[in-house]
């Protein structure tokens, strides 16, 4: 980073984070004393067995859930709720069925106070970015699952977040669409220079997109692990190192 470039923002620090839920009256510890530093502009994947707390962690980072103890710092400032520097992409696209694609993508900016025409002008750029220029006038019900998810991604990008939080965004897509979308996410991450925090259950997706992979354990008491993915970009799924990494990660989950 040169001094001319604007100081890169979007650094995340997690300090002693704990979160539990009450399940049938019993407290269920989901996150225990988690510490984590995410560099600005980094791409981090969070993997782990179902129910290990991936969504919970992401929701705490998003400010949608308050931690029981510990804190999340973004660029040094403590998180106390949702914030302008973060945008979240959920597993479901969460589009408003009564608005067309253009207005759905512009919705985030409208919520941030931009007048409709300016929101739409910005929205157009991101609709093009996700390759839906011909569908501006379409309504959510007329879109396929992959297209709808791309609309959701475009909406999150319009607000130009420093940090993009994604909770299994491609989980519901078919294999073919998923591959294309992974390529798109890699491109968006590169072009928009955001900090990308991606929850996924797809280990290949994690290796394809992430600089580091956080593996959350299932058993309580076991410690989370961080794995560096030192592969050149753009990444090649058939590269021998890539394949070896995937095998190693799968072995962590007892898969072969």
């Amino acid at each position, binding site marked *: 980073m040169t001094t001319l470039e604007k100081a890169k923002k979007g650094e995340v620090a997690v300090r002693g984070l704990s979160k539990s839920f009450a399940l049938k009256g019993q407290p269920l510890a989901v996150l225990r004393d988690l510490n984590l530093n995410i560099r600005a502009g980094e791409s981090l994947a969070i993997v782990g067995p179902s129910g290990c707390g991936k969504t919970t962690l992401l929701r705490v980072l*998003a400010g*949608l859930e308050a931690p029981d103890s510990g804190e999340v710092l973004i660029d040094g400032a403590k998180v106390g709720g*949702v914030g*302008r520097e*973060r*945008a*979240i992409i*959920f597993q*479901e696209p*969460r589009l*408003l*069925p*009564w*608005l067309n694609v253009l207005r759905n993508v512009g*919705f*985030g900016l*409208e*919520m*941030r106070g931009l007048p409709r025409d300016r929101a739409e002008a910005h929205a157009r750029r991101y609709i093009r970015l996700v390759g839906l220029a011909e569908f501006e006038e379409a*309504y*959510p*019900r*007329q879109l396929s699952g992959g297209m709808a998810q791309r609309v959701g991604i475009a909406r999150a990008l319009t*607000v130009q977040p420093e940090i993009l939080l994604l909770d299994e965004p491609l989980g519901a897509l078919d294999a073919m669409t998923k591959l294309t979308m992974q390529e798109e996410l890699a491109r968006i991450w590169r072009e928009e220079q955001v900090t990308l925090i991606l929850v996924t259950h797809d280990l290949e997706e994690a290796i394809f997109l992430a600089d580091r992979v956080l593996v959350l354990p299932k058993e309580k008491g076991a410690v989370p692990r961080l794995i560096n993915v030192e592969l050149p970009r753009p990444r090649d799924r058939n590269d021998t190192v890539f394949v070896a990494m995937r095998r190693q990660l799968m072995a962590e989950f007892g898969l072969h």
Partner: protein
Amino acid sequence: MTFQTIDPPLRLPALPVLSSRAGALARAGLKRFGLLGGFLLFWQVAATNGWINPTIFPPLDTIIAALWNSLTSGAYMDDIAISLQRAGLAYGAAILLGIPLGLFMGQIKPLEQALDPILQFFRQTSALALYPVFILLLGLGEASKVFVIFWATLFPILLATIGGVKEVDRKLVEMAQTFGAARLTIFRRIILPASVPAIFVGLRLSATTALLLLIAAEMIGANKGLGFQVMNAQYNFQIPQMFAAIILLALFGLAANALLVALQRRLCRWSELAR
């Protein structure tokens, strides 16, 4: 006369000769209105041939003639006006109170939970059963008539609106919150539009109820109105006039429903797109 002439399906072989579009239209029309047409035709033939008692079921042409006469002579104009006024006032008041109250109650869970038993109780209490109470309180004039219709139409609108608000996808609300939307903005941009289809269900239900209660209210202690004319014609044994008033009421019901459907189509196009 043989039965063949009034049996529509026997005419079907002629249809394939028509162009395919006109044919499809005709078939769709036949499917939708064929049975009704058959019924009306049967009425006419049965009444003119004396198969059914024509003093109670006069032939359709006499009924239509009576309808035409009463409309062109302006005999029913006052009745139509007063009936529309009663139903309109009551329905309008129910909308003005029911929708805002429903939107409010649907969002405030403790309020909704506290009031729900009362609402369910009132809903189950027939408005007609309460009409004597309203007459005692408000007299036999316009006020009690309008109020009983208002009472009956309020609950479908109120309950449908509350239901609509409660059904709003919380995930959409959360999505707006992540963009920093304020409460009022969320109400205006998410909760309100998402509730519109449910509100229309209540509006249409209430429109039917309004006409029903209108007639009932006008049959008791009224000297004007379409409901009164139905009763009055029956007392005076003017059976064609009685049916003419009944048909007028049915037409109003159909018109009100058509109007609401058209409005719903405009406002809720999104909820029908995929259907």
